């Protein structure tokens, strides 16, 4: 059973994720002068082609390699005593606090509460006529799912095959695709939750939407 209050409290007590920056291999560490409290940014650019803020350099065999921030956030602590030291692989160098945004919080909650049913391949997906009729008549939540139940029609390159649902029993929480659009393989088609938990989840999401304070 999902405990909404506990979950929210837990998240708001630590509204961030701590990322530990570890050395990828052995080498001599050189910090670039970042202090606790400094802001760092993650990879940028349209294609994430620009690396994040430089955190430290690691030199092995005269080969100096940059270590960059994987996500934006704030430097929590730096192990300054390692400056100029030779370290092993996997040694923590610093910690970065990445503050969670609304979307990230909701994604975390839903990840815990939902079972995602994903597209097995890139194709167009349709609900089978019975399911479709039910959804149109009574909304998404009116469909009760059972393992092995015939659910989708997969249409690709003029070939149509049925696809059965597999996973825990429950009801559809949300549908993540448009009928008739192409969906890439691995993308979620729908989220499934237990029928009893539905109001709880909706409550959590609403509260996050309303109450969560984003820190930049």
């Amino acid at each position, binding site marked *: 059973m999902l405990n909404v209050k506990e979950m929210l409290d837990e998240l708001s007590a630590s509204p961030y994720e701590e990322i530990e920056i570890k050395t990828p*291999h052995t080498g001599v560490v050189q910090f670039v002068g970042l202090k606790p409290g400094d802001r760092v940014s993650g990879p940028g*650019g*349209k*294609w994430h*082609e620009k690396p994040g803020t430089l955190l430290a350099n690691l030199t*092995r*065999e*005269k*080969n100096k*390699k940059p270590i960059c921030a994987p996500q934006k956030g704030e430097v929590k602590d730096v192990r300054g005593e390692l400056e100029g030291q030779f370290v092993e692989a996997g040694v923590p160098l610093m910690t970065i606090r990445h503050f969670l945004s609304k979307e990230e919080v909701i994604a975390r909650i839903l990840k815990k509460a939902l079972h995602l049913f994903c597209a097995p391949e890139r194709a167009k997906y349709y609900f089978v006529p019975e399911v479709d009729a039910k959804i149109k008549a009574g909304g998404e939540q009116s469909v009760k799912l059972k393992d092995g139940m015939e659910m989708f029609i997969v249409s690709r390159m003029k070939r149509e095959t049925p696809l059965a649902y597999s996973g825990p029993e429950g009801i559809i929480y949300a549908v993540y695709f448009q009928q008739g659009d192409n969906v890439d393989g691995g993308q979620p088609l729908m989220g499934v939750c237990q029928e009893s938990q539905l109001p709880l989840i909706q409550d959590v999401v609403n509260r996050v939407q309303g109450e969560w304070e984003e820190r930049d």
Partner: protein
Amino acid sequence: MDIDKRTKELAARLTYIRDIFGPRENASVALLRTRLEEFLAQAPQLGMRELSRQVGRLEELFGLLEGKLEGELSPMDRVRIVRHPQRICLKDILENVYDNYTEIGGQDEWSIDPGMLIARATIARRMGKKTVHQPVMVLGQEKGHGQEFRNGGSIKPWGNANALYYMRVAEWENIPIHTYVFTPGAYPVEDYPGAAQQIAKNLYVMAGLSVPIVSVFSEGGSGGAEAIALADRRLMLSHGYYSVISPEGAAAIEGGLKAKASPELIEKCAERLRITARDNLELGFIDRVIQEPPLGARPEHYEFFRQLRSEVIRATDEAVHSAEGLGPLRALALRQRRHADPQEIFVRWSLSDKARRTLVRKRYAKFRAMSRSAFRDNRSLGTRLATAVARMLWQAHSLLRHDLLARYQRRLSRLVEQLEAEVRALRYGLGGPLARLLGLGEAAGGGGARRMAVPPEALERLTSLSCPEAGACRLEEQWVYVSPKSRQDRTLTCPNAATHGCQDLWAPDLFGEFAGVCSTCGHHFPMEFQWYLYNVFDFAKALEFNAELESANPLNYEGFDLKLEEAKRATGLGSSCITFETRLDGLKTVVAVLASPFRGGTVGAAEGEKLIRAVERARIKRTPLILYSHGTAGIRIQEGTCGVIQMPRVTMAVRRYISAGGLYLVLYDTNSYAGPVASFLGCSPYQFAVRSSNIGFAGPGVIRETTGMEVPPRYHKSFSALSRGHIQGIWDRRDIKKNLNQALLTMGGGNLYYR
């Protein structure tokens, strides 16, 4: 009403003048402004007659001072004139110069590229009482007086492709082509077919187009201009510019790319680049200058259009005359061109087959003669003479050996082949009694038995491993030249390490045995050009030629002499191009290398000349020609038009070589961009790239600046060029020698000496 209109016109003239002279303070402009303001202030109190008198005087003053200002125009002012929305554009020319026209390349924004205007036009000429309508294909960039959708005359690849198609149509129809160049440069996108690739195709086709081509330059911006400007007669408007790069671009490079260049530096660059009509006439890149009214032609200058009309007619007549020859009287009239009106003398513009061939030959000769004094020739008189004699001897040898002797040899071998086939047919029982009588045919049958008798050592060779006792085949001994980078004691990280999990590589391994190739993902680290010279092209045994031709500073570009000396000292080369004759697995080949350490592998007059000579050598000696681009940043901007003219020059030489039946193979490495890719490199039917190289027209920074488009990270990678169809394959560095040999044996035309 009339006075009102005239005052408005005067105000517009003043605005135009102020646009042209920019922020500069000028006494004449100030005088005009105060006079006009005074007049406007007084006007309400003046009577009709007085008004008219004063406006007349103002108009006279404007005329006078415009004439004076004309003398003060700096090159950058001319650039501003050319870019001004009031400047004449191609539509005005079509309306006023031609008698009739139909647009065929689309209409306004409903066109594959609204910047490229293509039209079938006619020019009427008198033949006694008869009027003859002579059809012409007119094409050029349309700036459309500031119409946004025309992109200011920057043509996308498909616009150039459309122009090329209609140039071909003109060739089928045997009518002349008039091209008008109004472009600041090509639109630098790499979408199919790619800006560079399309310009290269245009140049290649235009080099052999067998109808007269006349081009008129107003704004000639580098590669974009060349795409339609390879012509028999090149005219230029007196206020136009023709340059390798925009003055802003040159200033950005000069002043370091990051900072924004100051207006003074831009002015200075415009002067140094020698971009005006007079400069280009002096340098010999255009044939004639068409004088415009003071401060540049605008759509209302009808007298100018009349002059332009007679100039293009005359230029077309001259082009026709150079190929076909006119009657003695008309030829005389054409020579005394200042006096005769070309419209009065009839010249038929469709050419005979013979004249079409002559035209193409003359066009080549015309471009071949350009920029001959823009490089330094350090050869002694004796060497020059010896080279000329050797060339003649080779030509004679080639004629004897490959044309005359080979013809008989071919006939003989064909005869022998036929006879042999006949005898074989006889053996298979077709000869009947005759075969039996001679003891041939199946009955005599030794065929099957003979096939069985394979000598035991051959059997051994075919069925066992080549060196079973030697263990695994080791590679480290195979490189003659080892990069000095392999002497450093350090490791390197492959740029793909994050995605492919490549291990760090130890420099002696990487640059020695691995030939600079990552052993996990196959990424190619850049190698020196010497690595290729010695390990691929066997440079130690090669015969280098024309090493004495060295780059110079033809425009006396300020500060460039020093940079050039520096480059020569640092690399030990005289120019970025090395040409030599070598043997690849026994096959004699001419190779040209563009070496990137010398001024970024840029191409100027010396490089162009060396390349042309290499191409001609390969043509005469009937050897394959390989152009290895170790890296080129484009045309050398400090040489101005002397550099940009190498694009058509070398492409024409290449075209001549390819159509003679040779094999022209281009191999790209590291980074190859701009002019060379958009001409003689991109026109080859066989282009390959070494892995991890980049190929393109403009770098990401320039694309972002000009188009406002963000460039994806792997936009210029050779694999993108391969999927676009620009190049034909990607080679591993370690396999180049093998692949080249395979290419020499299987690709190219029938004119190679070993075929």
